[in-house]
């Protein structure tokens, strides 16, 4: 219970911070809109995204804001319908990567000794094995990987960077007085880790989540784009796959090929802006200087 409260307090602090930072706010608003679209895609899709119902290959028009593809499907509706899977892959991978990173990084730092040596070595080895080629090789054997397979592949390849960062920060906190005091009081390890060690690390954990999600959306879209994931689902990457395989650019249908990429870029930018802002929290030296000076001058 106590853990939940400190966790919520950490989140509240993050929110406080997002509200004050322009970059973070922009990221949060974009993220909110995309989440809304993922939750209720039908509110945003004027046409059936899978219906081969219209004149193929028309450009911008009132009836089809982004035109139709060469199968006669409405591009805008496909974009909206694809939002859910793309956003979900990123968030789910981000979530599981963060859990693994925290578990491994913090366990290593907190336990020390042989456990730390083994876990750090494992982390470092995974970290240096080239991720994207590995993802491609695994996906190649799994032909037409489903949503959860893609998630699985991206999580096992994506957690190591965060684990290393979190380990370093946990190490620097491990011997602080308040931690030693809690241990001396005879608190259990669980208590010390969850209530004393993790809360100060919230901003780094959030930054890790955002970084992993950013990695996931780009890697997952890349896999879908080259046809290594199930391409018969609705997602931005699979739209790119169909556009590329039907020569959308030479055929004069640039919107079909470019619009999904813009959506990925918008989503990615939202994550990157938030991440950049949270980087400034965990490293105060990076915070903008000009603003502070102005505030002081006003006061």
């Amino acid at each position, binding site marked *: 219970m106590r853990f939940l409260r400190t966790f919520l307090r950490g989140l509240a602090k993050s929110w406080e911070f997002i509200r004050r930072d322009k970059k973070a706010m922009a990221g949060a608003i974009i993220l909110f809109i995309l989440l809304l679209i993922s939750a209720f895609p039908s509110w945003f899709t004027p046409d059936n995204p899978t219906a081969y119902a219209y004149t193929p290959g028309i450009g911008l028009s009132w009836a089809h804001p982004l035109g139709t593809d060469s199968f006669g499907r409405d591009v805008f509706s496909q974009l909206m319908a694809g939002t859910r899977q793309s956003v979900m892959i990123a968030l789910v991978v981000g979530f599981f990567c963060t859990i693994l990173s925290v578990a491994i990084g913090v366990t290593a730092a907190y336990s020390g000794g042989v456990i730390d040596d083994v876990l750090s070595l494992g982390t470092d080895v995974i970290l240096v094995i080239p991720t994207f080629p590995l993802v491609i090789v695994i996906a190649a054997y799994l032909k037409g990987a489903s949503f959860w397979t893609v998630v699985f592949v991206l999580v096992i390849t994506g957690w190591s960077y965060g684990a290393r960062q979190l380990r370093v920060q946990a190490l620097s906190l491990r011997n602080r007085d308040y931690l030693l005091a809690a241990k001396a009081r005879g608190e259990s390890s669980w208590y010390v880790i969850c209530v004393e060690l993790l809360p100060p690390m919230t901003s780094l954990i959030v930054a890790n989540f955002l970084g992993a999600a950013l990695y996931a959306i780009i890697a997952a879209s890349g896999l879908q784009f080259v046809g290594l994931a199930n391409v018969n689902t609705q997602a931005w990457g699979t739209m790119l796959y169909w556009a590329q395989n039907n020569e959308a*650019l030479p055929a004069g249908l640039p919107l079909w090929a470019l619009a999904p990429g813009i959506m990925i870029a918008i989503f990615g930018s939202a994550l990157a802006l938030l991440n950049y802002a949270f980087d400034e929290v965990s490293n105060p030296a990076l915070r903008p200087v000009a603003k502070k000076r102005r505030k002081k001058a006003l006061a």
Partner: protein
Amino acid sequence: MRFLVRRVGFLLIALWAALTLNFFIPRLMPGNPAEAIMAQYHGRLNPSSLKAIEAAFGVGGHQNIFVSYVQYFADTFQGRFGISTSYFPVPVTTVISRALPWSLGLVGVTTILGFVLGTALGAIAAWRRGRIFDNVLPPVFVIISAFPYFWVGLLSIWLFSLTLNWFPTLGGFTETATQAWTWGFVGDVLWHSVLPAFTILITAIGGWILTMRNNMITVVAEDYVTMAKAKGLKPRRVLWQYAGRNALLPNLTGFAMSLGFVISGAILVEYVFNYPGVGFLLLNAVNSEDYPLMQALFLLITVAVLLAIFVSDIATALLDPRTRSER
């Protein structure tokens, strides 16, 4: 000395892990990919070659897994990667050596260029902290670095090739040209490399700008930089000779790592442009289920990255005594 032993030890462990991964991935996968490989080879290879492939992929089940594991290591260290199924009967190593120069040229040059340019811009941004240059540059590149780089490739094809007709759309050279060291052919190759190079550069540069800027901000606050300024040294000298050199050190590891990745090519950019490099080859191997080629490529890429990291660790230790005492 102790440091060197540690790094060599890590290199060996990482190599072993990568090789083992490469060995077990096809065995752990559902649907028995090995059977598919054997079917592709059926009737095309002599029995002894078949046996080597059985060892590499663990087919049939009549072979002890430990025996094949040892056999696999022996084959790998002697560079026996088998025969490509999609370019049958060309050995995998020959197929790779044809693609390698393309990736080395394109990605090698752009990686170095991106690092130099990005580092310089990042250093200047930190130096002019809070001015317009620093306020605009980092956020812009934060956003650009979130773009899927293959999509930047699609965009530049559409804009510069199909709409403006400035550059060719696909390939590494004109198909009909004779490949030789003539000015005409070299020019043709350069001509074809402009768009892929631009795509890689624009997406890679942001990371260097941001990390250099962040390193630089902490270094600029150090006493020796204040001291150098107080001595009345020219700002440019303080920027590059005092602050810049030290801020660069942590980035060297990243740079070495990205040099290792040069071997893998820019996989998706090469795919978008049909550029005949290693990345394009890897995806082609995947699409045509050429597993021996795919596995050899994965190993090659991994070994390149591991060696690059190893070299960078040693170089960093030589350049920066502070890192030597650490672990």
